């Protein structure tokens, strides 16, 4: 099979380098255009199994706001984000909460935790 080139923008940092990946038989032969090694890693992941950090909110009781912002403590498969969001709708926590507290351990068995983005009393 011929070598195929795929172009994508790196989203790891705001520099947004334009990356080119050469692919043959579904295997990534090379990545170019990146200004740092994170760009190559990104292209390899993005073309095989794209992942994203996920941010959302959960309900919170006894706090001055009705919602607590939360974030995944690592990236999770892009295709699972909407499932995670749906799951978080069933969660309610109670103040006080400290930043970094685990709100949902190992969400949907994906190996990442959902943690509080901020403290709330």
């Amino acid at each position: 099979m011929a070598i195929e080139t795929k172009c994508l923008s790196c989203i790891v940092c705001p520099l947004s380098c334009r990356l080119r990946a050469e692919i043959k038989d579904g295997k990534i032969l090379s990545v170019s255009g990146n200004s740092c090694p994170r760009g190559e890693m990104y292209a390899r992941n993005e073309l095989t199994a794209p992942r994203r950090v996920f941010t959302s909110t959960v309900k919170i009781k006894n706090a001055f706001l009705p919602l607590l912002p939360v974030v995944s403590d690592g990236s999770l498969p892009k295709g699972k984000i909407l499932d995670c969001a749906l799951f978080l709708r069933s969660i309610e926590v109670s103040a006080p909460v400290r930043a970094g507290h685990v709100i949902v351990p190992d969400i949907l068995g994906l190996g990442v935790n959902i943690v509080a983005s901020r403290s709330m009393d």
Partner: protein
Amino acid sequence: MDKKAYDVAVIGGGPAGLAAAKAAAEAGAGKIAVIERDRELGGILQQCIHNGFGLRHFNEELTGPAYAERCLGLIKHLPGVCFYVDTMALAVQNDNTVVTSGPRGITAIKAGSVVLAMGCRERTRGAIRIAGTRPAGVFTAGAAQRMVNMEGVLPGNTAVILGSGDIGLIMARRLSIEGVRVMACLEIAPWSNGLTRNIVQCLDDYDIPLYLSHTISAIHGRDRVTGVTCVKVNEAFRPVAGSEFYLECDTVLLSVGLIPENELSRQMDLPLDPLTGGPVVDQNRQTAHTGVFAAGNVLHVHDLADFASEEGAIAGRAAALHSSGQLAAPPGVLPVIAGDGLRTVVPQLLSDPGGGENIRLFVRASRPREKVTLEAAAGGRVVFTRALPAARPSEMIVADLKTDRLPKTADHIVIRLT
């Protein structure tokens, strides 16, 4: 009226204001007041629940609220810093007294120096005049962001986003995650105004089409929005006849730009830069009014909170030095001009440029370009060059200029892209 005396008064408790307070304390100011109209500190960051903050300032990718908590953690314990929340600064008088209204009534805060760090606000529909009816369901993207992320209310079921600013892009993803259908994002310019990474992870990830060179020509609906007419525009931003199409929606989000919040600056008759929308300042971020400084989004719109913090620190330090009489009075000022390829430059003035100090310049390109050189010229000589892989209006360019390179005969400095 209750009266209080401080060395430095900071108006606004966002990242710029908090960094200013910290830097002022480190530069020796003994008593510092931070005045914030909201019920808590942190500024706009509290509603920006997405990640992407702090890569420069904390070497770590944080969410907005986490970034705010870090900033607060750095100053909460400082003995001389006093926080006034739920307190609005109403006016800054000629002698640098800040008149405030808060839970304890009207208080006059007399300060040696004042740092303006009021942030910015969003341009509204009125500012861009869309034709059609006036139904409910039209929001600025930032107002919708506060509703969804802090108050727990969704603005509607089906949305169209006008403008590709970062807030609009971030909200396209946020609404999609919460089950709202986002039909499209329309941008009148032939390029996006948001960061490329936000186009990828907020629009492409959710299959939301981005229509460049397009705008909304009419909003429809009687009580509630029922749809919008979209149209292609030519280079002069005029509608192209026959290109109209209709999108059904019950919500329109406007992400059409931010304007520095300068009511106080205007009351004080501070000269404003028509392009940045903020006060004209020198390298210490001192405005035309001696002892009044400005930093963050009130000065010019920042895309990264990290830079707002950095600028807050510059202003806070200088404010502390001014209040203790250590900031040399400006003997002369040298205009810094945005030349070819650039839209804005901050600072717009250099005071006492003979000192050999490093001047941090924040500039913005007027249109996207690849492989350019940023250049500073003074007295007929090029005094600084730096090659850049790309320059985009949505991404601020930061450069450091050493003043000992400036020829003595220079009467202005031009910064440009070649």
